[in-house]
């Protein structure tokens, strides 16, 4: 029995937080304070206070002083959500010598003052929840956090700029990293770009050195052309399965000479790296600077896989590296932490029918334009129409395609204004074309962003405020456009208040950013949550922007939401810093929320055995009882609820605690007389759970 073991009479301290006016504006905190003293006195409350900001150091000192001076052995703080400040108040208790798990947080902000307006009803609800907290905390027992060693290795999922940054930061600090990338090469979307806004840095020039460093770093193991198929375990000790898709070559022998790619007779459109406007071979390296240097063979387009003949690559490979019978391979990795940097997908412009993408040849997407303007792209950096030769004389750039639109995505994709203006600059740089930007609002709030807006204006780009209504090739009058094949952009010039039809040669749709199509599936696999759109939800959007709700799993880059390159790099580095801090602690304290089996009461029925998805429950055939491995148990409590003998107890969420809380919450809800009609209004005999 620890010194904190409850004495016969619980001595509970109640603290009601005003949270400025956040709570006090709706809840009569003084009344709650007095009510707790009056009505909950019989339930062990010996002191009840209110304070403007309980989480302040002065507020915490109130608790600490009372523990010491009044001999409190239980604390209830009625304030915000436990997800916000549970740790804070547990810390205060611990400093005063009270076991931190004897502190209970009652949420009267998120669950009361912020969601109700009627002051009387809100105050009554705060009182009811407080009563629940007091009756729950009475049943709480001291607990000790579980300590587990932390694996030094980290898994980084996604090899774009955010993932590369995170991997390099951790690897440079001396710890191993596994970097998993779905595509044949790391580099992500940034590798597709020509220039970056607003500085017009050459994307390849700044990215390639990082890719090369990551590819050759002794602490980084690359798993390209691979996907994570399974994640098990918990923070500090994840077991991850990674599927290596076959490249159909032996990377130990391949020198990356490129002869196979050159000789391969199957040429297909490359919808990924070249965004659909360029070609690649069936065996290919997506771009010359690819890391690793090895090509992959795409069996869906390979003549050998289709017809059983060809084998040109195999015959011509100077080192005999081609392996046409290669099979997928699954590897199992042990890691302590995970960074999800899975990036974004471009919005599918076909969905906006009015813009005619896919129907009208000279309507392009921003990704197509990025590849077109790239010197190593399909047109060698020439800005041309779909015919591949004609230089446009007029270019329309359309903002907010698929963004800020309740029909598609409600959010602003954040990067498109700047990207569009970069396009205007590039068009002017490569051609003499007249450029129109059609926008709703110009969003240029970054460093040197608005200056870039002004620069593009100075270059002669015409800005028209109006969301483009449609792009059409149907002329209203024979002379509406100067030449055949021209497109008409129909828009309201909102500053002039009139509808305009502007003939152009080329339309570039600045498409928004969307989560990866499999974002929900990936979130499930890693046990994290994402928004309905599919962006990863941060542990706290402001104060903890790279952690997820799941311990040990972090996120970086556009997996969290649309952002530009500097912000992606910053979040990658931030995730790395969080992980390095943990690795250096060598071990982790885990919440002691676990299932515990009382062997005396276990009847050996084995009903619980199949319920645990973490294999924490095993059956001891000799003793004919079931056991729980506390290191594997995650504390969900399904087995506790299922045990017919009531032999399984849950620390932190015991039956006695929960029944007490229910009792407390409903005790004063006008149902107090119910007890008279039921046999036993009191909770069943508390199931004390020793720590």
């Amino acid at each position, binding site marked *: 029995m620890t010194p904190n073991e409850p004495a016969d009479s619980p001595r509970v301290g109640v603290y009601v937080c005003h949270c400025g006016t956040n709570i006090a504006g709706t809840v009569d905190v003084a009344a709650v304070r007095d009510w707790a003293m009056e009505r909950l006195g019989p339930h062990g409350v010996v002191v009840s206070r209110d304070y403007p900001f309980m989480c302040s150091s002065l507020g915490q000192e109130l608790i600490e002083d009372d523990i010491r001076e009044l001999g409190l052995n239980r604390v209830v703080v009625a304030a915000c959500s436990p997800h916000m400040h549970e740790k804070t108040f547990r810390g205060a208790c611990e400093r005063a010598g009270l076991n931190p798990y004897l502190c209970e947080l009652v949420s009267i902000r*998120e669950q009361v003052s912020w969601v109700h307006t009627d002051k009387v009803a809100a105050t009554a609800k705060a009182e009811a929840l407080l009563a629940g907290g007091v009756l729950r905390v009475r049943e709480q027992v001291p607990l000790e956090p579980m300590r587990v060693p932390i694996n030094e290795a980290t898994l980084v999922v996604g090899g774009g700029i955010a993932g590369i940054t995170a991997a390099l930061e951790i690897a440079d600090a001396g710890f191993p990293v596994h970097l998993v990338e779905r595509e044949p090469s790391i580099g992500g979307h940034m590798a597709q770009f020509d220039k970056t806004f607003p500085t017009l840095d050459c994307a390849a020039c700044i990215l390639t050195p990082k890719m090369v460093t990551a590819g050759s770093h002794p602490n980084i193991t690359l798993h390209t052309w691979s996907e994570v198929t399974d994640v098990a375990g918990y923070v500090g000790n994840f077991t991850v399965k990674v599927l290596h898709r076959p490249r159909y070559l032996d990377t130990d022998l391949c020198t990356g000479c490129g002869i196979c790619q050159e000789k391969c007779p199957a040429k297909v459109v490359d919808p990924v790296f070249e965004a659909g406007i360029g070609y690649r071979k069936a065996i290919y390296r997506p771009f010359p600077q690819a890391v690793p240097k090895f090509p992959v063979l795409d069996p869906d387009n390979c003549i050998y896989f289709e017809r059983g003949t060809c084998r040109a690559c195999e015959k011509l490979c100077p080192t005999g590296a081609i392996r046409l019978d290669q099979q997928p391979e699954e590897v199992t990795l042990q890691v302590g932490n995970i960074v999800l940097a899975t990036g974004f997908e471009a919005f599918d412009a076909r969905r906006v029918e009015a813009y005619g993408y896919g129907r009208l040849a000279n309507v392009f997407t921003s990704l197509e334009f990025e590849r077109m303007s790239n010197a190593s792209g399909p047109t060698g950096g020439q800005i041309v129409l779909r015919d591949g030769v004609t230089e446009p004389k007029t270019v329309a750039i359309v903002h907010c395609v698929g963004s800020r639109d309740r029909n598609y995505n409600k959010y602003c994709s954040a990067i498109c204004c700047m990207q569009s203006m970069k396009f205007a600059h590039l068009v002017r740089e490569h051609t003499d074309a007249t450029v129109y930007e059609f926008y709703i609002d110009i969003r240029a709030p970054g460093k040197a962003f608005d200056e870039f807006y002004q620069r593009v204006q100075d270059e002669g780009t015409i800005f028209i405020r109006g969301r483009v209504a449609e792009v059409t090739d149907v002329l209203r009058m024979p002379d509406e456009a100067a030449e055949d094949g021209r497109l008409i952009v129909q828009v309201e010039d909102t500053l002039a208040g009139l509808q305009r039809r502007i003939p152009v040669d080329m339309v570039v749709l600045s498409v928004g950013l969307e989560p990866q199509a499999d974002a929900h599936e990936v979130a499930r696999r890693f046990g994290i949550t994402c928004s309905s759109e599919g962006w990863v939800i941060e542990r706290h959007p402001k104060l903890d922007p790279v952690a997820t709700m799941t311990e040990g799993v972090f996120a970086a880059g556009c997996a969290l939401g649309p952002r530009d390159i500097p912000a992606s790099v910053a979040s990658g580095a931030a995730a790395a810093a969080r992980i390095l801090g943990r690795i250096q602690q060598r071990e982790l304290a885990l919440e002691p929320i676990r299932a515990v089996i009382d062997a005396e009461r276990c009847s050996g029925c084995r009903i619980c055995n199949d319920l645990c998805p973490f294999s924490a429950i095993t059956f001891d055939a000799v003793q004919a009882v079931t056991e729980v491995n506390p290191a594997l148990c995650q504390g969900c409590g399904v087995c506790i609820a299922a045990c017919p003998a009531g032999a399984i107890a849950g620390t932190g969420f015991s039956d006695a605690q929960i029944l007490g809380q229910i*009792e407390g*919450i*409903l005790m004063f809800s006008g149902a107090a007389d119910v007890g008279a009609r039921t046999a036993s209004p009191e909770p069943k005999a508390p199931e004390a759970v020793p720590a």
Partner: protein
Amino acid sequence: MSEDVMTRPHPTDATASATTPREPVVLVFTCNWCSYRAADLAGTARIKYPPNVRLVRLMCSGRIDPSFVLKAFASGADGVLMTGCWPADCHYRVQNVKALRRFELLRRVLEQLGIEPERFQRFYASAAEGPQLAAAFSRMIEDVRPLGPLDWGRLPDLAPDHEALTNPSELDADSAAEAEADLMSLEAVGS
């Protein structure tokens, strides 16, 4: 303590007013990872819902013991709402599915006890679905209000067969199949 506080009528107290019927009280079980966070989100977004909705946080909806639900009704709740992650999104992989099976069975038992099915409902909410959860709270109150207070007196003796309720293998074939079909349709919706 001031006189004022002592005598202040409790708005949910049956004795508060003889003319206005008592507002129904709904106890909500939430899981720590999805629905509780959705409730937090509803709070942060200042989405309003009726004040007689009260939350109990568990780690997983799979933790819900039938005795918790019976205790809630016995203690005066007019309705109990079971919330958790979407079937495929459980933080503990599949545990909420087990809760779902248990829900179906328990609902039947409650019906036999004379507790209307409207009083015991379930709702899925991901951590991002604060507005939807708040709307579900409001709906639940609307569903329960017309039923009036739970007439405890006419209910048969409350002696739940703990084993039958907790042991999923005791599900009869029909209800198992039904729960399974229900689950599949939910998974289709959820995915």
